[in-house]
């Protein structure tokens, strides 16, 4: 029983991190109808910026405090992600207004390659470290009530908390602020939003900037766990089944979807894996998402699309 609970908790915490990555997809899709294939590259680019700035700043400014160096690095990286957002809008999206979804998807694929290339050219392709003081050692809890106790990974726990906090903040931003409402209006109907004076281009810059910040937080958490390197770009692939399952337009969908995928893949790997050779968790997540799609093509929380014919 203890082991099952451990696996369940491990899955939930991993799921929270997947939600964070999935959120990047949802944000951009909600506001611009673009499925952003470059989300993984943005995570890598942001993490590279954070890792390198936090190493360079103490050299440039002679700062000893790790906290201060990390703080400045975070601000610089966030600013850089907003510059990237502005450039994407100026150089790519602006020229593709009213193009169909497949064109925009291909454009984001191009953005992914450009970001990966520029990222490794500017910041290098070695493994870099982000040290934001995340605890690495595990902790044992409930030793009295459950035989053998429950082993909890403190790093995953803190990461899940940060992810939950960010998701909550974004939800508030979308629901309670005027910019958030403008973003939702743009998502509903570009032309109607423009007709009431919402500047489409500015909204796109804002939403890509917010997605860049989400990528930065995801990059810091995953970078702290895995080291900053090219594989971070593949972390976005963990978010894909989440948005398929949760729905591309729903923030709660990204959260619930992430949790279901996280738990599903861990339980499947641990209990089903040994029976069929193991190494199944990656494709199992997609399989799970496909099963959901059979019953709800728009995802758990996605909007049902009804076309008049």
């Amino acid at each position: 029983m203890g082991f099952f609970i451990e696996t369940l908790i491990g899955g939930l915490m991993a799921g929270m991190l997947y939600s964070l990555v999935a959120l990047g997809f949802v944000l951009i899709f909600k506001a611009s109808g673009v499925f952003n294939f470059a989300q993984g590259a943005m995570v890598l680019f942001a993490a590279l910026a954070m890792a390198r700035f936090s190493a360079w700043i103490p050299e440039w400014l002679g700062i000893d405090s790790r906290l201060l160096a990390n703080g400045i690095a975070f601000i610089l990286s966030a600013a850089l992600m907003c510059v990237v957002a502005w450039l994407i809008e100026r150089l790519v999206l602006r020229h593709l207004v009213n193009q169909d979804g497949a064109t925009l998807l291909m454009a984001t694929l191009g953005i992914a390659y450009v970001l990966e290339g520029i990222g490794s050219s500017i910041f290098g392709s070695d493994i870099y470290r982000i040290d934001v003081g995340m605890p690495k050692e595990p902790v044992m809890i409930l030793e009295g009530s459950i035989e053998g106790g429950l082993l909890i990974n403190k790093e995953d726990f803190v990461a899940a908390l940060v992810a939950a906090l960010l998701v909550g903040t974004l939800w508030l931003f979308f629901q309670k602020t005027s910019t958030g409402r403008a973003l939702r209006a743009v998502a509903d109907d570009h032309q109607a939003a423009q007709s009431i004076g919402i500047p489409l281009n500015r909204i796109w810059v804002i939403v890509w900037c917010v997605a860049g910040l989400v990528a930065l937080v995801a990059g810091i958490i995953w970078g702290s766990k895995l080291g900053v390197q090219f594989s971070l770009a593949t972390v976005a692939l963990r978010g894909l089944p989440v948005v398929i399952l949760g729905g591309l337009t729903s923030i709660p969908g990204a959260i619930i979807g992430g949790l279901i995928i996280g738990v599903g893949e861990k339980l499947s790997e641990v209990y089903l894996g040994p029976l069929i050779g193991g190494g199944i968790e990656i494709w199992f997540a997609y399989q799970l998402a496909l099963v959901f799609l059979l019953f709800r093509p728009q995802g758990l929380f996605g909007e049902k699309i009804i076309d008049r014919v």
Partner: protein
Amino acid sequence: MKLQQLVLTAAALALSSLLTAPPALAQAKEQFFPVLVYRTGAYAPNGTQWANGYVDYLKLVNAKGGINGVRISFEECETAYATDRGVECYERLKGKGGGATVFQPLSTGVTFALTEKAPVDKIPLITAGYGRSESQNGAVFTWNFPLLGTYWVGADVAVQHIAKKEGGVGKLKGKKIALVYHDSPYGKEPIPILQELGKTHGFDVQLLPVAHPGVEQKATWLQIRQQKPDYVLLWGWGVMNSTALREAQATGYPRDRMIGVWWAGAEPDVKDVAEGAKGYSALTLQHGAEPGSKVVKDVLDLVHAKGQGTGPKDEVGQVLYMRGLISAMLGVEGVRKAQERYGKGKVMTGEQVRWGLENLNLDQKTLDAMGFAGVMRPVQTSCLDHMGSSWVRVHTWNGSKWEFTSDWYQADEKVIRPMVMLASGKYADEKKIKPRTPEECKK
């Protein structure tokens, strides 16, 4: 007067063309080394160091006057550790520079794909420390050279090391050994020998595959926590290795009970985990990090000091850099050996280099003179044995650097040879290959 000027001009032109002739001739006397690398993609941090060592050694040979006067030309091709791109690179480079000397794909997947192409194109494949384990049998795999060791050598030595730690082979009975492996041809290579050794010595082998690139291992380590194996063998590459060490730390699995293969025992695997990887051991393909060796000093003096270095100076001598450097050296020595038979100072064909590689005899004196004293042991191949050496040491990460923590082990031929013969025989039957006889080898 005009005629005199004309004659003088013509003479000057003739002289200048003669003077420019030597470079043209030298250009013809270039031995072409294709360099398959991965400096991009998920495995770039590891692949880049290997590539830098490989290229630096080729530059060093040129700085010392080439191979008996034959200069080396080379061209890199990026594979990103993808089999299709590796094959593409092979096709693109095999005919360049008068024909490729030797290919070293640094990927077991690419090696599997090229094993059938190499005999057709008559270009040897050196796979130092990787590739197909049964390709040690030169009678069947006439163009493959898994020099210095195969994964079966690695797995056998890992078990020997565990037995030594436990106090003897007899103590292995009832033990549980988990293999956490990259779910690819590379990661699957040690499975047959571990299962065979498990049957012989009475230990249980638990198989735990990890999907590429290996960033998600939580479920794997939860299983390890549940089943509590006595040892974990780590058969990973790239980010999979550091992730495994982080997960071991997060689940409290003791790092001194983990043993990695030689592709899971370099600086990129541990430096980021630092103290968290303390006590973790890995096999070495003879060498470890060798910053104090003579060959490294030569590279720094004759290549880097002249602004010709391929990568960062502070990485020269690190584990994977040395692996690349030694791999290049083996290729170069194959050419040198071939020249002994087919003509010193001549450019060798792939077929001639194959002869050189299967007649390699790098004794300790030669290695020491080349700057490899303390780095590696003698390598002697034959037509039937394309591996040439099966010596392994173990090194351990002390939190800041790798340190040798064992004596030399040698793989047990009594265990490996029958498996090599069986697997290569099966391959020969499948592909309808008639194995070479010792008599044919003498030709």
